[in-house]
């Protein structure tokens, strides 16, 4: 149990003029880097790192916390308004967020995003502060077999996403899984499918791929249409409508929060997995599934809640065990170590003041994001009314910068261009890029844990059914795969029997 005086010292440390200024600065930088396609929390924090030199650990982490949390909101703004996820975790938000914008409900979608994001982060940080040790110990029970089955379960949600077009969905997922095998195999370290290109030895770069699939393909689509993204003037009252809409779906909020927090607490399963899983869960739970992907507010609520709860959940194993829950959390972990905050079970006592100052900063930032979303987001919404010949080059240069800035490599720009062409083709011809992205995220986790599990069991597949958790995951995966196809049959059977 952490002594109360440490907690109060941490809370008080946040409320200094310097730290409040840094908090606000981090928040603004976070929203901006979030809006820029490809520059997610990880790259954003690295870009801000030079500014933190000379700061105390508490101040530096308060600054970083702003970038870490606000980039998620910024990513959703660009996903909703210009169909370009600022970061991979916002890809699920655009599935319903952008169609809402096309229907002139962009302001409402932004309001939903800010409210659900705020709720996810507020409850997430409370969970992080009060239950971190408990959740971390539970996540530790997951061995390679369980992690492999978890990835398989997450992949099985593709079945619900591509229900209308299963073959093309499966092809898209296969492309993603094949791309996930490119580069050095993590277990045997052998190089695969690089075709002699050294740049591919670390695998197909994820952010560059995402920028291509979503941003460049969007540039091409917008160029073709020669009009503004939304021709409807956004109503100012839409933001408050979004605020109210969010609270009309308490079950969605609860389900997505649990999924987001849990996925976050599991090492290596990142925010994109959480937002897609929360989104897929809502499709599964909905009576009318046909409205998803066409501007259903529930889709935005689920994705945002899952994403933001996961951002906090990611920090549970990061702070408690030193195991980052995502790429963003990995960078956060590195920065913590630079400033002498060494994660582990002792961190809450030895660095308690800094840790609780961090939690307080997250809490304040969540509320500020809500305020920002409900007031200034309308200015972001104006982006959709800007002429295409102005907005397209802006999206293009920031997308290319996002791809270039990570490694300062022009080869990355080529990768982005190739995936831009692929994304455009897939959108045009009915291949959903979502299974590709999901498979690309989950593929390495699936393979690595599959190999490790088999090494542990001397090649016996029985390890995948050796624990209660494994059996539950196998059952869930099987159910998830067949349910989308079984449910219409069951419905018909019920109607006939009546």
């Amino acid at each position, binding site marked *: 149990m952490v002594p109360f005086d440490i907690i109060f010292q941490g809370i008080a440390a946040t409320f200094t003029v310097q730290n409040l200024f840094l908090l606000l600065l981090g928040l603004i930088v976070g929203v901006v880097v979030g809006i820029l396609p490809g520059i997610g929390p990880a790259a954003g924090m690295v*870009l801000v790192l*030079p500014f933190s030199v000379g700061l105390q650990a508490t101040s530096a982490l308060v600054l970083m916390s702003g970038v870490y949390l606000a980039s998620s909101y910024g990513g959703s703004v660009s996903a909703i308004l210009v169909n370009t996820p600022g970061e991979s975790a916002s890809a699920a938000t655009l599935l319903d967020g952008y169609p809402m914008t096309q229907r002139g409900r962009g302001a409402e979608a932004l309001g939903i995003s800010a409210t659900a994001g705020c709720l996810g982060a507020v409850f997430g940080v409370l969970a992080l502060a009060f239950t971190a040790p408990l959740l971390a110990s539970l996540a530790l029970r997951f061995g390679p077999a369980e992690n492999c089955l978890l990835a398989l379960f997450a992949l099985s949600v593709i079945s619900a996403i591509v229900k*209308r*077009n*299963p*073959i*093309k969905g*499966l*092809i898209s997922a*296969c*492309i993603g*899984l*094949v791309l996930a*095998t490119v580069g050095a*195999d993590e*277990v*045997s370290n*052998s190089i*695969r*499918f690089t075709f002699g290109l050294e740049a591919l030895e670390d695998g197909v770069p994820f952010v560059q791929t995402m920028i291509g699939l979503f941003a*460049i393909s969007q*540039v*091409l*689509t917008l*160029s*073709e*249409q*020669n009009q503004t993204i939304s021709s409807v003037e956004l109503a100012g009252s839409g933001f408050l409508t979004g605020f109210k809409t969010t609270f009309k779906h308490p079950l969605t909020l609860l389900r997505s929060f649990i999924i987001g927090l849990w996925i976050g607490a599991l090492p290596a399963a990142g925010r994109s997995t959480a937002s897609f899983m929360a989104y897929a869960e809502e499709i599964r739970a909905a009576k009318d599934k046909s409205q998803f992907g066409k501007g259903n507010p529930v889709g935005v609520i689920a994705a945002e809640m899952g994403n933001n709860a996961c951002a906090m959940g990611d920090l549970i194993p990061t702070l408690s065990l030193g195991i980052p829950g995502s790429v963003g959390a990995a960078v956060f972990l590195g920065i913590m170590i630079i400033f002498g905050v060494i994660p582990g079970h002792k961190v809450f006592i030895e660095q308690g003041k800094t840790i609780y100052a961090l939690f307080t900063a997250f809490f304040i930032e969540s509320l500020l994001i809500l305020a920002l979303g409900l007031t200034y987001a309308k200015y972001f919404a104006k982006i959709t009314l800007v*002429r*295409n*010949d*102005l907005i*397209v*080059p*802006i999206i*293009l*240069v920031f997308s*290319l*910068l996002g791809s*270039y*800035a990570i490694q*300062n490599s*022009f080869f990355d*720009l*080529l990768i982005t*261009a190739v995936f*831009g062409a692929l994304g455009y*083709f897939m*959108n*045009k*011809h*009915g291949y959903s890029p979502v299974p590709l992205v999901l498979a690309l995220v989950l*593929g390495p986790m*699936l*393979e690595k844990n*599959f*190999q490790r599990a088999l090494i542990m069991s001397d090649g016996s597949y029985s390890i995948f059914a050796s624990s209660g958790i494994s059996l539950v995951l196998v059952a869930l995966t099987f159910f998830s795969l067949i349910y989308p196809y079984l449910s219409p049959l069951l419905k018909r059977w019920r109607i006939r029997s009546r």
Partner: protein
Amino acid sequence: MLIPKKFKEPVFLFNGFLLGAFIVMHHQASRFPERAQKFPKFVLGLGILTLTLWMVAYLFFPALLKFTEGQAEKEDEVAGNRSRYYWSWFCIAGSIVVGYLFGFMFVVPAAFLSYGLILGEKGKWVSLMTVMLAMTLCFYIVFYRTLHIPVLNGVFLNID
């Protein structure tokens, strides 16, 4: 020789290309160490099976595909202008080449000028030039001077 229309469809060509690539990669995977080849072979095998099934259905049982895909394709078809699409690629590729030669910062004017000249609205140059100059300045101050991203590092011009 006349090639049937069926074989010229973009989806058929794309899936055919994928099938060929997957077969070659499956063959290549056999050369990897045993542990490193299991997963890629499984995934590629799954892909080959799916694509083969699609090919068979496309060539011999098209009604089956129409049943599963027809509706989705109709909805996803967006009316667009092909020439604008090709010119857009020209602008993207041109901007990347300019950036490669003179440094990334030159992507900004290249992108704005190419889009403005080729795809932009006539008579709206003032706003275009204003945004272009503002963006270039923003790149210089924020990303070059402040964040030290080497955006002035090209083949012909290397200031970093």
